[in-house]
């Protein structure tokens, strides 16, 4: 993103935030905190005093929509650059440490018992970030035909392993009788799918590294 665009995005964000703060203050001071405190949408009737809050909310939503569009545009632009790039992207191998965030997934067992909340299991996805360690080791490598071939081979192998695990889970867990409880079945299935995706992310980088540096032989010049 160009510098001017970044500045504009930040300024718009600050403006939206200030507008929202001003509208909230107005609502609390002059409009009985309407639209700030929870309301039943069925019983809502419009009042002119609601306008500041409504306008700032709409602007805030539009701003988030704008941010989302920017994100999509950046992703597409990055993909295009990757396709035409000669060298592998530069990455610090230490980013692989983010893989440890995957252990946050175990919080899911606790939250399920206390609040019946299973979303934290999704954090197991972060295990896939261990792949950054191997990707970082191959930073700025010139991507010749052997590299690209190995990349495709690694991706295909990783996809095959991950989809095999998911298929097995479908057959075994999908019978829906894990410990005689449908909820446990859903949780087990969620964990298996999330871990398989993480494994796919990790393996595609790890196998690429293995294929590239693979078989042990003397790498010295004749």
């Amino acid at each position, binding site marked *: 993103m160009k510098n001017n665009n970044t500045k504009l995005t930040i300024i718009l964000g600050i403006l939206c935030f200030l507008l929202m703060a001003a509208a909230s203050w107005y609502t609390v001071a002059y409009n009985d905190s309407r639209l700030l405190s929870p309301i039943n949408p069925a019983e809502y009737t419009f009042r002119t005093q609601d306008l500041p809050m409504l306008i700032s909310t709409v602007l805030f939503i539009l701003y988030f929509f704008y941010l989302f569009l920017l994100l999509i545009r950046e992703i597409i632009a990055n993909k295009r650059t990757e396709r035409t790039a000669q060298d592998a992207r530069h990455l610090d191998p230490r980013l692989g440490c983010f893989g440890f965030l995957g252990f946050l997934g175990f919080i899911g067992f606790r939250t399920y018992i206390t609040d019946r909340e299973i979303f934290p299991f999704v954090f197991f996805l972060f295990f896939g970030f261990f792949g950054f360690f191997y990707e970082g080791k191959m930073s700025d*490598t*010139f991507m*010749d*035909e*052997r*590299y690209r071939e190995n990349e495709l081979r690694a991706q295909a192998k990783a996809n095959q392993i991950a989809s095999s695990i998911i298929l097995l889970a479908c057959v075994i867990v999908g019978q829906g009788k894990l410990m005689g409880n449908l909820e446990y079945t859903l949780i087990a299935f969620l964990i298996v799918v999330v871990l398989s995706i993480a494994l796919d992310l990790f393996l595609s980088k790890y196998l690429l590294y293995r294929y*590239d540096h693979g*078989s042990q*032989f003397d*790498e010295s*010049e*004749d």
Partner: protein
Amino acid sequence: MPGFECRLKKYRQLKEMTQEQLASQVGVRRETIMRLEKAQYNPSLKLAIDISRAVEVPIEELFIFK
């Protein structure tokens, strides 16, 4: 790779080229040339032609598939 023989090393040395020089001439990494010489990598037709031109040896002399 069974049935694949590569005589690149011999002809490259005859041309007094290093792996690095050949690699940069044909637009690949030195590791790729190394694997080729050990017959551990099956090159694309384009790379095979580029190499054969670089070492000035017919392609069928360089790569032999039994």
